[in-house]
């Protein structure tokens, strides 16, 4: 065991000695006086956007990427061997960083806290290299929920910055291709931006040290093993140990709860895989939601849609799919969709492996079937390609999920409904999935209604006929309030599904959202540069 560790903070090594395992990075930085308003301020609640830092990571396809993450949800030992930057670093860069200059010129007037949060999200976006469309812009900045936000100026600045990044990438790509190193750009290993952060990033490789095993002054332990076997052995050795993944769930109680032993899944190779198989996607339990969104989400529409509205960018950058399922939050919006997608969850322990359909994973009382000593290894999501559907005797599959919240982002979902139907060539339903969360102590399926749908033609009449069963099966059984409303949603969300997917062959939602007409989510914003103030950039 070691009683210290180091990490890189703003390009310099930072050594931590004996600090409590459950101290957050935010608190650590506050003590050092790193926050813009001085150290006396408490960290911002993560539901209000949190206090962000930029973390160097490797994305789902192996490229180095900066990710804005919420420091109030990070336990300090998680940082061992990592590379982080605070907003200060960008403000101090000489000559001024593009993002800082653009923000200063825009007179955002949002206060230093919000400015730092916005700044880091913009910086992440600047170096992302995959921001192309207007829709992605709002997604990147969905953690901005303050009363001081100048929405209009923020969007304008973001467009300028991202457009500039896109232009630089494009130019660098052309030069690189000409000189035969185009591949390096795709791999994220060519410095496109020509600044210290970018140079730092292209040279970033995760530390390949030993496993971390750290003990703090109060003898609390923090392990970060590299293999699944080690993890399971540790879990066996310390039966009370808590597994920790992204920490966005556990971090919310940081400082209030104490854990004797924490075992991080972050470095476990087997849990970090994300694989596209011919018939399904295999998603390791420790894969972040951002990575899931960027891979599976692009292939499986409804999942991408749901993830883009999950918490906020900074939370998605850390939160894992395994952690999300293990928490088994009654309002969790991903579970019902995984049910509708007919996904399976794979569990593993020293005794062996087992797997279960998604719906069977959840147990009464907000619990799961996870046994002590057992962890989630992966989730497999079927890919319903034509040939696969054909094998199942279906011609098409319609699937969608709807989550209802009081505000768009950083908001606990009130309720989620996820639906799928597989249709034969003649338009009759071969199989149906109707699942809800946020109604009871676990996600519920309307199994009777699903059965009743089978064999019927997919039309309004069929819907009307099964609604009573849905109504009967899905009861509001928790005390989260708005019962009346949720009772209504049980029906109307299903109706909405039919309304948006009325056609057999058409598995694209009928777009009626404001999104399609006003936001032009698919419109690239880089030509918008012409509108922007070039002098700034």
């Amino acid at each position: 065991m070691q009683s210290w560790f180091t990490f890189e903070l703003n390009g310099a090594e930072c050594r931590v000695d004996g600090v409590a395992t459950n101290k957050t990075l935010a608190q650590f930085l506050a003590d050092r006086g790193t926050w813009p308003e001085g150290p006396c301020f408490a960290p911002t609640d993560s539901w209000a956007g949190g206090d962000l830092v930029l973390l160097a990571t490797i994305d789902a396809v192996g490229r180095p990427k900066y990710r804005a993450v919420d420091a109030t949800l990070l336990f300090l030992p998680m940082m061992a061997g990592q590379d982080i930057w605070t907003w200060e670093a960008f403000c101090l860069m000489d000559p001024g960083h593009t993002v800082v200059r653009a923000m200063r010129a825009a007179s955002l007037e949002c206060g230093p806290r919000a400015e730092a949060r916005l700044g880091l999200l913009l910086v992440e976006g600047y170096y992302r290299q995959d921001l192309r469309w207007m829709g992605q812009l709002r997604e990147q900045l969905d953690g901005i929920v303050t009363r001081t936000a100048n929405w209009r100026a923020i969007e304008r600045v973001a467009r300028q910055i991202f457009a500039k990044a896109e232009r630089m990438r494009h130019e660098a790509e052309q030069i690189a291709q000409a000189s035969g190193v185009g591949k390096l750009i795709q791999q994220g290993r060519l410095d496109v931006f020509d600044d210290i952060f970018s140079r730092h990033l292209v040279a970033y490789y995760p530390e390949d040290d030993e496993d971390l095993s750290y003990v703090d002054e109060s003898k609390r332990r923090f392990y970060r093993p590299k293999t699944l076997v080690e993890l399971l052995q540790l879990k066996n050795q310390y039966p009370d140990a808590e597994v920790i993944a992204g920490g966005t769930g556990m971090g919310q109680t940081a400082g209030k709860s104490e854990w004797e032993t924490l075992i991080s899944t972050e470095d476990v190779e087997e849990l970090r895989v994300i694989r596209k198989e011919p018939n399904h996607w295999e998603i390791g339990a420790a894969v972040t939601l951002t990575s899931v969104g960027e891979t599976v989400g692009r292939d499986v529409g409804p999942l991408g849609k749901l993830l883009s509205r999950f918490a906020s960018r900074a939370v998605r950058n850390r939160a894992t799919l395994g952690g999300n399922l293990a928490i088994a939050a009654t309002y969790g919006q991903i579970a019902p969709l995984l049910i509708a997608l007919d996904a399976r969850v794979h569990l593993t322990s020293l005794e062996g492996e087992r797997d279960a359909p998604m719906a069977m994973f959840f147990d009464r009382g907000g619990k799961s079937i996870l046994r002590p000593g057992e962890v989630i290894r992966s989730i497999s999501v079927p890919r319903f390609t034509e040939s696969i559907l054909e094998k199942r005797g279906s011609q098409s599959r319609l699937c969608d999920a709807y989550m209802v919240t009081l505000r768009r982002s950083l908001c606990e979902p009130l309720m989620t409904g996820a639906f799928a139907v597989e249709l034969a060539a003649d338009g009759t339903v071969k199989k149906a999935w109707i699942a809800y969360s946020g109604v009871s102590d676990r996600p519920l399926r309307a199994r009777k209604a699903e059965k009743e749908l089978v064999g019927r033609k997919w039309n309004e009449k069929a819907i009307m006929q099964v609604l009573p069963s849905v109504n009967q099966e899905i009861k509001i059984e928790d005390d989260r309030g708005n019962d009346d409303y949720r009772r209504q949603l049980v029906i109307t969300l299903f109706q909405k599904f039919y309304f948006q997917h009325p056609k057999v062959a058409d598995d694209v939602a009928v777009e009626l959202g404001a999104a399609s007409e006003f936001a032009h989510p698919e419109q690239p914003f880089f030509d918008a540069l012409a509108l922007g103030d070039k002098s700034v950039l």
Partner: protein
Amino acid sequence: MSDDLKNNDSAPTSPFEVAESDKVSADSDFTEMASAAGLRIESPDGSDPFELDDQAALGPVRTEGDDLTVMLLLSPHPAATIVRKAGAEAREVEGVEAVLFSEDLGKDLNRLMPWRPDDPILAEDEVLYCGQPIAIIVGKTTAACREARDKIEVDYHNAPGILSIDHAMAMQSFHGPPREVTRGDSNAVFAKSTPDTVFEGTFAISGQLPGVRPPGVRINFRPGERAINVEVRTESPARVRAAVAAAFKLPESEVTIVALPLENSGTVSEMEAALIAVLAATAAMRCRWSVRLRLDAKETALLLGRRHAANASFKIAHDAKGRILAADLRIALDAGYTVSDSETVLDRAILHSDSAYFIPDFTVKGQLCKTSSVTSANLPAEGVAQGTWVMEEIVSRLAIRLRIPVEKIREANFYRDKAGQNSTHYGQPVNSGAINRVWTQARRRSGYDERSKAIAKWNRKNASFKRGIGLVPMKVGIGDPRSERNEGTAQVQIMNDGSIRVHPGVVDVFDGLNTQIQHDVAVSFGIPIGQISVFTGNPETTPHMTARLGVDTTGLVLKAVADACKTIQERLRTVALQMLAARGNMEIELEAIRFGGGHVGIGEVSAGRSLTFTELIDGAFRRRVNLTQIGFFRAPNLWWDREVGAGWPFSGYAYGAAVVEVQIDAFTGEIDVMRVDLVHEGSPAPDQADRDEAQFMRAFAQGQGWLLSEPNRASDDPDSFLTTGDEGIPGLSDAPIQIEIDRLRPMGELSAVPGAPCSEAPVVLAMAVREAIRDAISAFSGRKSVNIDISIPASPPEILMTLRDVSRQISEMEKARRYEAEANAVPNTRAPQT
């Protein structure tokens, strides 16, 4: 005692708090720095200004620099009689220094003087609101305080309490007499009207929470010094100073306030900051040591007031075209258990209840309700929004009643450029031309007419999604009806190297005021912007600081800065004249001397016709010219006679209009705000465009949150105070997808124009969102004359409820129509028989 109230051990989420577990590394560094953040009282070595009790005189051994922690025990009940309070056991807890009840303070100290001579700081025999402090606990550590708090025994005898405006009205529970403003004789008009031209109704506007940012306070007691140092986050440092001085029985001149910046105005109400400071000061005084007090999120939610909820009832007489001939309005505001700023808020509501409309015979009555909840706060556009919205709601309902497009009704009622029709019910003239300008501009620039048509077409095709568009005008009085509030101060100091330091007399709320001051000063002295430093929030140099809310602070302060600059410039001109004369330029006239490009004079430096600014300052210093100046500005000629209900309370009006388009999803009740067009008079200076825009957006977002997504909380249940995630403050994802802003130069002469009218007024324009929702819902109803009752906030559940209600009304109408048709059919069929 609710466990939750006691065990709010959210250590790291409160400001300044170091969790016990972190103490190891949370070295004195942190503590020291943290001390820069709270309230601090300094104390004794012989010259102690306070009476010491014996225990304190012995003085427990403490380490310098380690503050004592103050914690509060808050009442979990909104109304109760306190039967028993026992703190003996709590005092025994190791590390606890004091447990104070109201009895320990004595009647005279248990008052928030000079502001609330009648209200106790700590509850005496009676609990007046949920969250009222009952006891102060002082201890060495948070853990000790928490343990002691758990051991305090309080027996309550619960009373029902008054929890709503309706309840207060029924119980006749009011603060002060009703207020009234009258023009003409509305009753006479009603008497002459027929039932189909008179129309009555009620309208309720809910409160809104301040952005919950737990306030903290630190009091410094330094041995040997008499002065007190208080570090606190507040809108109005002067009030905190007065209250702390009164609590210590010190002259105000001995109290130093360090006013920390606020992230936004309206985060900590003025009076509550004083209350929290006094609670901490009391603890410090008793223990004679520096203390800090931090509230956690829940305590904050309980102790900080929300907006004034309002209930209005109205009766209007109108003609067939929708012109309002007479109106009788009653507005009741929930002031809470005591009145802080509510009197003025009520004034503002009454003064704005005409919105932009001329109503010949008009009576407005206002009343402040006394309820068992924390005193209501003064947030941006407080009172202004409530008053205006009542009238806009009336007009909008009238349109549905008459089935006339609502914009026609609005236009028919605007103030007109005719004698007798261009002044408000309290007698201040209105610029009807300005109303017309913003209105036509908004209509034209947003393409209102074409879009209305396009929307109607779209709606015909879509059964489950409907769109609506809303257009509202706005007229907001600039200034505060309390005329003493309409003043600003600023201190300008020129350093020997020619750089300039400015201390504006306001707290920083990060609204860009600092940059604006920098800019103004740089322009007036003709030097680069980098030479100007602005330090906000220092009550030592500008003791009479302007509160950030309810007034045109920015404008007042900018004018005070200008005043100081002008005075110094005059002095400098004389110096320049002398210096240039010494260089042989005798013919220069004083008035001709200009400041620009780093030079002062009338021409080329090389020709000896100008000096560099640095040269000049050096010369001025040598000639013993005062280079420090306090600037002062007061808005002239303001008066408001509350008793008579007449006056000229505002230095002018800010005019604006907004068009909003929304889309409602009938499956879920979710609302997309698709496009917003704002037309608004901005600051007179063209270079303030960006900062004005920031103000517009901030204020509009606050209004949108209030009307759309920020839930209300029960004031009688401490557990109903939700977590931050449920606050529902709209984020960037909720922002309108398209926003167009048209910033107009105010009409009239520049010097008469108020400085920056846009920091609060656009809150009012958010009403357009509600109007658009009404329009969309009315599309669902096929534009029938049904009652569309949209609650505030119009959250998805409420919208779905409203839709259900509307369809119920329609089916009833259908039924009634069919019934009538049948009834009519009967004689017809019989007729041939007879």
